[in-house]
C-alpha cells in the first residue's frame, strides 16, 4: 500500500497547457500516473499529449470522475484554482505554485476543508507512491518501491535523502513534499498518522527546517502515537535569526523556530536526528533491525 495516491488515483492537471503544466504532465504520464484530464479556461475541447482539456474543473470532474488534482497555474490564480477544485468535488488537491499571498492560502485552505478536500502545498514538489503514481515535479528515477515513508518541508533536500535511501537499498512507500510556505495543507502530524496506519510503511524519515513549531508538535505526536521507527533531519541549524532562508516559512522569529529546539524535542521523543543527510539510511537501518 501507500498513502494518498496509488494506481487508482485519477488525476486532473490544472493549468495543463502552460509550460510547467505540460512539461510535468508528460513526466507524470511517463511514470504511469493515471492522468484523466486537465483544465485551461478557453481551451476546453483541445488536448495535451492526448489528454482531454476542459474549461472548468466542474466539466472536468463530471466527465472524468477525477478525485485528485495538481495545480501549476501562476501564483496570482492558484488560490482560486484550489477553491475551484474543492468546489468541483476533488478530494486531494496538490498545489505546486510558489509565491501565493498567505491570506489567499488561508482562505483557500479553509474553503477546501469545508468542502471535505485535503490540500498538499502550496510551494511544494508534490508526492509519489513509487511504482504506483506520481503527482508532482519530483524526479521519478531516484525513487524505488519499498517500505520507507518520507515527509518533508523541502524539495531538493528530500531528493538528496531519497537518493541515499535508494542507493542503500531502502525503497519508499510514499514520499511527500509538504511545501515551504508558512501556511500549507497536510503537515507532519496528519501525514505521520497516515504513515503509521499504512501497512506498507515500516520506517519513517521526517525532514524539517527552521521556522514554526510543527516539528515539536510532530515529536509529541510520535511519542504518543507512532510505533514505527522515525529518523529526522533539520535544515538551518546555523541560519541567522530574522532572515527568511529561501522558503517563506523558513525563518527564526524572535527566539522561536530554531533548529536546536526542534532537534531537542525530536530526540526527547525517541527520534534519531541525523547530522548529515547521508547518515539517514544507516540510522534508520539500525532502528529497523
Amino acid at each position, binding site marked *: 500500500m501507500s498513502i494518498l495516491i496509488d494506481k487508482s488515483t485519477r488525476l486532473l492537471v490544472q493549468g495543463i497547457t502552460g509550460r510547467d503544466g505540460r512539461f510535468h504532465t508528460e513526466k507524470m504520464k511517463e511514470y504511469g500516473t493515471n492522468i484523466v484530464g486537465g483544465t485551461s479556461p478557453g481551451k476546453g475541447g483541445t488536448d495535451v499529449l492526448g489528454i482531454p482539456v476542459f474549461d472548468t474543473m466542474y466539466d472536468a470532474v463530471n466527465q472524468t470522475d477525477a478525485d485528485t488534482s495538481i495545480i501549476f497555474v501562476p501564483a496570482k490564480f492558484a488560490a482560486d484554482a484550489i477553491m475551484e477544485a474543492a468546489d468541483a468535488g476533488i478530494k486531494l488537491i496538490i498545489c505546486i505554485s510558489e509565491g501565493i499571498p498567505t491570506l489567499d492560502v488561508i482562505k483557500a485552505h479553509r474553503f477546501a476543508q469545508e468542502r471535505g478536500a485535503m490540500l498538499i502545498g502550496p510551494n511544494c514538489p508534490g508526492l509519489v507512491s513509487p511504482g504506483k503514481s506520481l503527482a508532482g515535479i519530483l524526479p521519478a528515477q*531516484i525513487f524505488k518501491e519499498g517500505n520507507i515513508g518520507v515527509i518533508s518541508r523541502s524539495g531538493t533536500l528530500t531528493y*538528496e535523502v531519497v537518493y541515499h535511501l535508494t542507493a542503500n537499498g531502502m525503497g519508499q512507500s510514499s514520499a511527500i513534499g509538504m511545501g515551504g510556505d508558512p501556511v500549507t495543507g497536510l503537515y507532519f502530524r496528519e501525514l505521520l498518522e497516515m504513515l503509521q496506519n499504512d501497512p506498507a510503511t515500516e520506517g519513517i524519515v521526517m525532514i524539517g527546517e527552521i521556522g514554526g*513549531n510543527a516539528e515539536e508538535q510532530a515529536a509529541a505526536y510520535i511519542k504518543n502515537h507512532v510505533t514505527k521507527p522515525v529518523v529526522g533531519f533539520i*535544515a538551518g541549524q546555523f541560519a541567522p535569526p530574522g532572515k527568511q532562508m529561501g522558503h517563506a516559512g523558513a525563518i527564526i522569529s524572535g527566539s522561536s523556530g530554531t533548529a536546536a529546539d526542534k532537534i531537542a524535542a525530536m530526540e526527547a521523543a525517541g527520534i534519531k536526528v541525523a547530522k*548529515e543527510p547521508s547518515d539517514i539510511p544507516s540510522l534508520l537501518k539500525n532502528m529497523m533491525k
Partner: protein
Amino acid sequence: MKIHEYQAKELFSTYGIPIQRQILCTVAEDAAIAYNMLGKEEVVVKAQVLTGGRGKAGGIKLAKSDDEAVSHAYNILGMKIKDYTVNKIIITEAVNITAEFYISFVIDRNSKSVILIMSAEGGMDIEEVAAKTPEKIHRFSIDPFIGIPDYLARKFAFVLFDKIEYINQFVPILQNLYRLFINTDASLTEINPLVITDREKLIAVDAKMTFDDNALYRQPDILDLFEPTTEERIEADAKDKGFSYVHLDGEIGCMVNGAGLAMATMDMIKLYGGNPANFLDIGGSSNPQKVIEAMSLLLKHPNLKVVLINIFGGITRCDDVAVGLLKAFEEIKTDIPVIVRLTGTNEEEGRALLKGSRFKVAETMGDAVRLAVDSQ
C-alpha cells in the same frame, strides 16, 4: 517586509486607530520646531529603526523643553541600535498612562489562520510574557470568511476591559486593525502598548507592521515604504533574478539548487569548521546563464575565498548540469577555487565530464565541504 513605527502609525491614522500627534525629523535642530509645533510641555523623542529594543538602547527619551528635545535628537540620530543606524526620529506628544495592553494580529501556522493575540501585560516583550505567564495571553483564531463582526469584537473586548467606555473605544480599534491587516496583506500588526490615558482615552503608543512578501505585487503603496539596507537591496535584486540570497559574514560562498539543500549545505560548512559567506538557492534548474549571474553575485562578497557549488540533478540530469557549469565558467573570470558536488541522476557521467577542468570535484557532501574548508 518591515516598516517604521511612524509609517505604521500613519496607516493606523488612516484606518481610524487613535495615535498621538507625531512629527518626523531627520535633523536634530528640527526637534525644536517640532516641540513648539506640538505645543505640549512633554514630548517623546523616538528613534525610527527597523528593529526592536530601542528603549533599552537609549533610543527613546522624554523631553520637557525645545532645548532638551534637540539635545536628545543629537544623541539619538546616528546612534546604532543592533547594527541599524538611526537616520530618522519622531517627536510625539507624551501621554499620562494609567494602563497598558498588548494587541496584535498575526498569521498563525498551526491554526492556518490569522489570530488575535491580546494581553493585559502591555509594554513588555510579548515573548517573555508568553514564556513566563502564558495564562496572561489570550489567542483567538479569526475565520477568514467571517472576519470580526461587532459581536465578536465585543466578545474579545470584554476579555480585556469591563467598563463600557473602554469597550466602545476598543471595538472599533480591533475591527480597524483587522481591516488594515487584511487590506494591506500584513503578516503582523502589533500595538504594544495600547494605553489608557489619564483622560480615559485608548491610544496606540507604539506600532509595528510587517507584510507578506508574496503579496507585495498587489500592494504598491506598501512597497513604496520599503527602505532596504545595503544587504537587503542585494537580496531584493537577487530575488528579481529568481534567486533566494542571504548575505552572511563567512568566507565560503555557496550555490545550491533548493532552499532546504542550501540550508543543509550551510549547516555542514559550519559543522566542518568553516563559515558560509551566504545562503543562495538558485532554484530548480541550473542553466549556464543562472550560474553566471549567481557567480557574479557571490564574487561581490568581500570575504569570499572559495565557492562551493552543490547541485542535485533531478529532472535536469547531472551530465547536463556539468555541461552547463563548464559553459558558464568559460565566461566567468576568477581564480577563486570552485568545488563542485553533483549528485542525483547520471552523477557519474556528470563528474566524468568535469574531470580535468578548473573545478575540484567531490562525490559526497562531506567531501565537498571538507575540500571547501581546506581550500580557503
